């Protein structure tokens, strides 16, 4: 039963669009899945102490490369997405390799990646003749003739198609998380995050291990950015890159819990529902209320719940479970 539960949950989730739940709830679900994908990708690094403020850059690269190639050269996103991912990976290596080689960690790593994210945003704004600058840009529609979808342009009038794309990506990210979690790399990364020199002395290739996890995380984030652009059919330097997005990613993950598999997903659900709930409750006229509450909560979370919502819940259960096991007679199956 325990093993089947996740599959049942996934099947139930996959059936949601068939229930005819309406556009708005479906839109919310898609946003949750897309952001969960990005947040989970970030946590692959974050959980090992590699706090990156540079993921806004990777997302921006993914979104803009695909949109620019499509708008200016008519290149299909099926080729644009791999190219965007390739560019993000190249940037990740360009920044990551020297950082890890020269032992730039902690604060310094966070601030170098912060510079990266601003470089990406500013380059997008500065190339305003091509990118539309800070006004953003819309991918040219392939559905002008009234078609319901264009596989070539990766554009769908029906939200359900995107729901399944986002669902597959999110499941993929969870799978990658699990693979990393069960690999030797996890132990290597944990050792590195504790003490790099000690890890190196027992034969861990510090630079290569960190670079591998960074490349993986950057590639997935770029894919997330590209899909976000394709789904919204609008990209803007401030909504897909820059320090604002980087901080949003970090915050949501901390809120959910960055050390557990579903933590980033819980973070996405929590932050999106909070924002939407406030928007419905208070209306459009009051700007900034959601961020105001986020900010305050972020501070409170870090002070009182550094493991996040899900992390805290699992911790409680774990303790109760451990107590129950201790109370049970020895030798009984746990």
């Amino acid at each position, binding site marked *: 039963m325990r093993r089947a539960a996740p599959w049942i949950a996934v099947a139930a989730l996959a059936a949601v669009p068939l229930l005819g739940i309406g556009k708005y709830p479906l839109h919310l679900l898609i946003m949750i899945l897309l952001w969960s994908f990005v947040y989970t990708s970030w946590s692959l690094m974050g959980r090992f102490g590699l*706090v990156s403020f540079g993921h806004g850059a990777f997302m921006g690269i993914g979104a803009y490369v695909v949109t620019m190639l499509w708008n200016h050269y008519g290149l299909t996103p099926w080729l644009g997405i791999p190219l965007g991912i390739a560019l993000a990976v190249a940037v990740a290596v360009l920044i990551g390799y020297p950082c890890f080689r020269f032992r730039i960690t902690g*604060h310094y790593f966070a*601030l170098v990646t912060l510079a990266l994210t*601003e470089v990406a945003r500013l380059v997008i704004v500065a190339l305003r003749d091509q990118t539309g600058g800070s006004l953003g840009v819309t991918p040219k529609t392939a559905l002008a003739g009234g078609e319901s979808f264009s596989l070539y342009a990766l554009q769908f009038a029906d939200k359900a198609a995107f729901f399944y794309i986002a669902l597959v990506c999110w499941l993929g990210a969870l799978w990658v998380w699990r693979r990393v979690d069960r690999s030797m790399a996890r132990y290597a990364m944990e050792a590195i995050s504790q003490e790099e020199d000690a890890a190196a002395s027992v034969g861990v290739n510090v630079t290569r291990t960190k670079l591998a996890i960074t490349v993986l995380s950057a590639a997935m984030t770029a894919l997330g950015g590209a899909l976000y652009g394709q789904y919204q059919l609008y990209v803007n330097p401030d909504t897909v890159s820059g320090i604002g997005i980087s901080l949003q990613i970090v915050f949501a993950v901390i809120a959910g819990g960055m050390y557990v598999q579903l933590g980033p997903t819980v973070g996405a659900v929590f932050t999106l529902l909070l924002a939407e709930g406030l928007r419905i409750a208070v209306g459009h006229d009051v*700007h900034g209320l959601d*961020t105001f509450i986020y900010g*305050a909560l972020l501070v409170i979370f870090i002070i009182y719940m550094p493991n996040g919502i899900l992390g805290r819940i699992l911790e409680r259960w774990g303790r109760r479970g451990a107590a129950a096991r201790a109370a049970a007679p020895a030798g009984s199956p746990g």
Partner: protein
Amino acid sequence: MEIFDVFLLEAVLNGLLFGGVLALLALGLNLVFGVIDVVWICYAELMMIGMYTVYFLYTVYKLPLIVAFAAGILVVSVCGVLLHVLVIRPVLNTEPINQLLVTGGVLFFLQAAATLAFGVQFRNLGLSLPSLELGEIFLPYSRIYAALTALVAMVVLYLFLKKTYLGTAIRAISQDRQIMPLMGVSPGRIYVITSAIGGGLAGLGACLLVLQYDVHPAIGLTFGPITFLICVLGGLGNMVGGFVAAFIFAQFISVGGFLLHIEWGYVMAFVFFIVMMFIRPQGLLGGKQ
């Protein structure tokens, strides 16, 4: 060609003046980092509070500018203390990255609070100071005053740190956190005082910026990243390094912006920063790590 050179010279001089202001901004952040070992990611948002304070006192309550400035500095100084006591102190002994992230939360909070309270419009003092004319070169007085004030503030801070008992205690804490309590210096008290001074410097920066720039809730995102990068480039906590780095950054932005476009000036400055991190990760003037 001759005209071109005059404008280039103007860009260089403006860069120098801008560098003075950036150096002052970096100074407060560096002081706090050097002593408490915490990066205030929300530093520029504290500055924003100061700018709003000056704006409202001067334009709405019609107080003299000098009083508004004094109040601005005081308010931000108090904010610095509150930030330390309410937010930083509880996480002071946890993982260092938590201290960075917690002030990130304050950044969101203050930015959104300003949006809620004042809306998103751009506000300015409505002052227009004249420009100094040197032949064909125009230098705004607001920038000249700002750079001069920044210089004076830096000299005062230097003398304070070198010549007074309290200054000596602050420097001592930044050198050895473990030993100083045994010497009768309470780190907690020094941290609060440092936060007040750091906040005060942010407030002074706010006064200088509000003369030249409109205040709006996102102003922190304009000045925040540059300020951290300057501090890191100079070597976090190294005030002289930050000073030098501020002038280098300002030249990139001013001259690069003049030759191409203002965003490219920033891009070049940031790329320079990233490259320098690899060449000298300890900062321009930092010692061996």
